[in-house]
Each structure stands twice: as structure tokens, then as C-alpha cells.
């Protein structure tokens, strides 16, 4: 599932010509990574890891990947917003979102 999402995102980054769509594809890839982390931490029939001393044989899911995903989501927010800011500035300069018309740098 998350591998499929990753491929969808990668396909989008490679084939789309629109700046905003590239950004959206990047976000899809990002989310596939987060899903993967959630999957890594999941243990069959596990519950949320709030330790209850009265019931010692309960199975908990691994809490560490969840903390990691939270951190990664915050980082992802920062990168996406910066990317969007750059896209807005690019649009003001070129009056287009088409990547084929934005090619001053070559070689």
C-alpha cells in the first residue's frame, strides 16, 4: 500500500508539468513514508501504549515510530510550505506554472 503510494508520487514528480502538481506528488510520497512508519510500529491486536499496571499481559503497539512520525510530519509541513512559497514567487516572475517555460538554467 505505502509502496504503491510512493510509486504514485514518484510518477507524479517525473511526469507532471505543473509546479503545484509536483508539490502535491511530493506530499503523496511523504505521506507514504509516514504510513510505512505507522506500519512498522504496529503489532497485531495491539492497543494504544498507555501502560496500565493492573493488566500486565496487554499487548501494546510500539510507541517510538509514532513519535518519529510526529516529528517527520512537522518537518514535512516546513518543507511543503517553503516549496509553496517558492512556487508563488516563481509564478509572479514568470506568470505561468508550466515547467517547460521555466528553464533559464541549462548545462
Amino acid at each position, binding site marked *: 500500500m505505502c509502496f504503491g503510494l510512493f510509486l504514485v508520487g514518484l510518477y507524479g514528480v517525473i511526469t507532471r508539468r505543473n509546479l503545484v502538481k509536483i508539490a502535491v506528488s511530493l506530499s503523496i510520497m511523504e505521506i507514504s513514508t509516514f504510513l510505512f512508519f505507522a506500519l512498522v510500529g504496529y503489532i497485531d491486536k495491539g492497543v494504544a501504549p498507555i501502560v496500565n499496571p493492573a493488566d500486565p499481559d496487554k499487548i501494546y503497539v510500539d510507541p517510538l515510530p509514532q513519535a518519529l512520525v510526529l516529528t517527520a510530519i512537522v518537518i514535512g509541513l516546513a518543507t511543503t510550505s517553503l516549496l509553496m512559497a517558492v512556487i508563488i514567487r516563481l509564478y509572479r516572475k514568470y506568470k505561468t506554472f508550466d515547467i517547460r517555460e521555466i528553464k533559464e*538554467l541549462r548545462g
Partner: protein
Amino acid sequence: MIFGRFFRDFNKYFASCVLLFLVVLSFYSLINLNGGLSLYKVGGWQPVNKIPIGIYMMMDGFNSLIVCIINLVGFLAVFYSISYIKRYTAENYFYALFCLLIGGMNGVVLSGDLFNIFVFLEISVISSYALVAFGVEKNELEASFKYQVLGGLASFLILFGIGFIYWKTKTLNIADIRAAFSNGYDKKYYLFVQLLILSGFGLKAAIIPFHAWLPDAHSSAPSPISAMLSGVFIKAVGIYVIIRLFFNMFVISEEMAILITTLGTLSMVIGVFLAIGQWDIKRLLAYHSISQMGYVVMSVGIGMILVSRGLKPEVASLAITGGIYHLINHAAFKGLLFLNAGAIEYTLGTRNLKEMGGLAKVMPVTSATSFIASMSISGIPPFNGFFSKLIIIIAAVMARFYLLAALAVIVSIITLASFLKFQRYAFYNKPANPERPEVKEVPFPMVFSMIVLSILCLLLSLLVIPSVREAVLAPAVDILTDPLKYSTFILGQ
């Protein structure tokens, strides 16, 4: 930034002072460390049953060297930008982002925890995206966009790699992962993880199949930032992490070592051929960065092959010494070259080599320092570049990789040719347009930074003397070639 509203010029002197303090601190720790290791547990989390649970910060012979060059080049670049950055608006933000960049890189280098490396990496990378786009003109924005898309891709690859490693080993501490991997592993899975990590950090380090973003980003950024990006950034977040993870975390397998050597050789050769056709000075320098990083990766890769085969340990350590030595030297001379390019751009307002000429008379300091830097990048004897390339070539010959040694010599000659072109067109030819306005030497802070770096270029060649080399480079090589030392030290605490 708040103080900056009340006192003019507060921020730039504050940033310089902070970085000067960091330089002193890092050199103090380099001397004080004396080949040992030191460890800091963030938040004071003690290990439970010898399993580390907190975030660890590590300092050893290898990364204390890298920390020193980060802070030294960072200090000189920020001092240089006191006068350079006046032509942009929003100086306050520049210094804030710059300090964020330095902090992120120091964090990456000192961290002993895989996910912590990722977090610090993102901190420094985000500030570098913003700094590349600092001029907000067409070129800068386009370069920054390209850089962000490729950098984002690299981050997700790294994150996937971390996820896969965590899945199998249930730990994020580098030393602990090493211990888990040495208990046995699934070979295909292992190879897949290594490829993910290598391509992620290879994208950050701009090794040749992943190099597309580098020339644009480095040539569009303001010059002190190019000096930082090219001199330090690609090493700290790319090459350093690759070397650290492949020596101290994974058990080196022979096929990965051969792959890394091949990639290094490719980027060494292709980088220099792409560089020789450039007329924009900063693009030329950026392609040379790729090529010089190829030297480092190739040399370390030779060391890896020998370590994985378990033969000739002294040649392996010689190759790794050459790689690390070249890495340090490259920070000095490439930083200097970018600062020179910035000085030329500051006075003439152009980066095209064809529109320059005759600058040797009017800008004597820039001309002299850039001559030193060009000679040391192309490996002319009294300067530092010669000695590190010599060590790399000797190591390649002793390891019986004759083809690689020959390629290293040829690439060095082509580098010399392209820098002679740079010298001739920029400084010695007649001026391209005779009626250009009067130019004069750049202001004091820029001159100061360039002179310090050029003295450094000469001083670093002292590292080739065996006793000095034993004191400075040997601990770094030791920690890499002896795989158990790192993990047993951390797990023993």
C-alpha cells in the same frame, strides 16, 4: 533579531562573535580529545540493560575534524558577508538562516542516533533551500525549486531507509544497530537498505548520477553561501554520513564497496569534463566540487574494498587518510575560490569569464589568493592539494588499482588546464570592454577572509609530515578502520 531592531548592525557582529566562539570551542575539543571519544546523553537518559534509549551525541577523532572545518569556514563566510550581503534586502534573516545552517550541520556531524541525524539534516537543508533562493530573482527561484524537489526525494529515501532499519533491529542508535546487524541478517534485505541509504545521502552529496541540482544551486546562491554549501555542506551531510554509516553501522560488504568506488570514480571523471566547458565562474567551480568529491569517495571506497577483503590494513588506512585529508583541504581551497568569485562579482557585477580580464593589477589580493587556491586545487607541490592527491594516488597504486591511479592523475591535469583558463581570462587578459568603470579592491572583511583561507591552504600541507599526521588524522582513520571500537565504546557506557 529582536535586538537588531534597536541597534543597527547588531546582528552581523553577534553572528560573527557566535561563530568565532564555536571555532574556538571546536578547536579546543579537537586538541583536548586526544584521540579518545566523548559521549553526551541528551536529557540524561541512562541505558536500560545496556540498551541505549536516549539520544546520544558523539565526538571522536573523525567528526571533531569535520566540526572544526564547518565552524572555521562558517566564521570566515559570515565575516565576509558583512560587506558582501549589503546589496540584498533583509540582512537580519540572512544571519538567522546562516546560524540555523551551521547549527544543523554541527548536529548532523555530532549525532550518534539515526533519526536525530535525519532531523538535523532537515534543519540544515531547509535553511539552505531558503538561502539559495535568497536573491528572489528568476534564476535563484528556479535553482531553489529544483533543489527542493530533489532534496525532498532524498529525504524520503533516507526516511524509508531508517524505517526499514528500525523494522529489523528495533533500535535507532548507530552502535546498537551495528551490534544487531553483526548477530546475523538477511542478505537481500540488507543490500536493499544500503542502497536506499546510499542513494538518499548520495543525492545530498551530489555524487554523479544524482548531481543535477548542484551546479544550479551553488551558482545561484549568494557567494558566501556557495562557499558554505560547496566547501562544507555537501561533505557534512553527504560524504560524512555515508562514511560514518558504512564504516561504523553496516558491516561492509564487498559489492557495496565496489559500487561506492565506481560512483566516486565516475563523478571524479565526469565532473571535470563538465567543468571545463563552463564560462560562468561559479558553475565552473560547482562542477569542480563534484569532481573533487569524487576523489574523496573513490579513495575511501578503495579503503572499504580492502577492509572488506580483510587484507593490507596499512594500505586501507593510507587510502582513508588520503580521503579525509583531501576532504579537509577541499573545504579550504573551494571555500576560498567561491569567496574570490564573490569578490569579482561584487566589483564587476558579472560572473561570465568572457567579460572579465586585467583584474590582476586592480585587485591584487583577490588575484593572489585565487592563484594560491587554483594551484592547490590542481595539485601543484607547495600547496595542500598536492599532498592529499599524492597520498590518494600512492594508496591506489599500492592497492593495485592502477586504472584508478591513472585516472586520478589525468583528472588532476585537466583540472589544472581549466583553472589556468580561469586565471587567464579573469586576471591576466586585457579587459574585455575598455570603457568599464574604475574598479578597486574589495572592502576589508572580504579581504581578511580570503587571506586567512589562503594561509590555511599553505598551512594544511603541513599535515603531510608524519608526526603531525599521526596526531591529527590517525585517530580519525583509527575509528573508521576498527569497526568494533565505536560500538563497544558506546554500548559500554
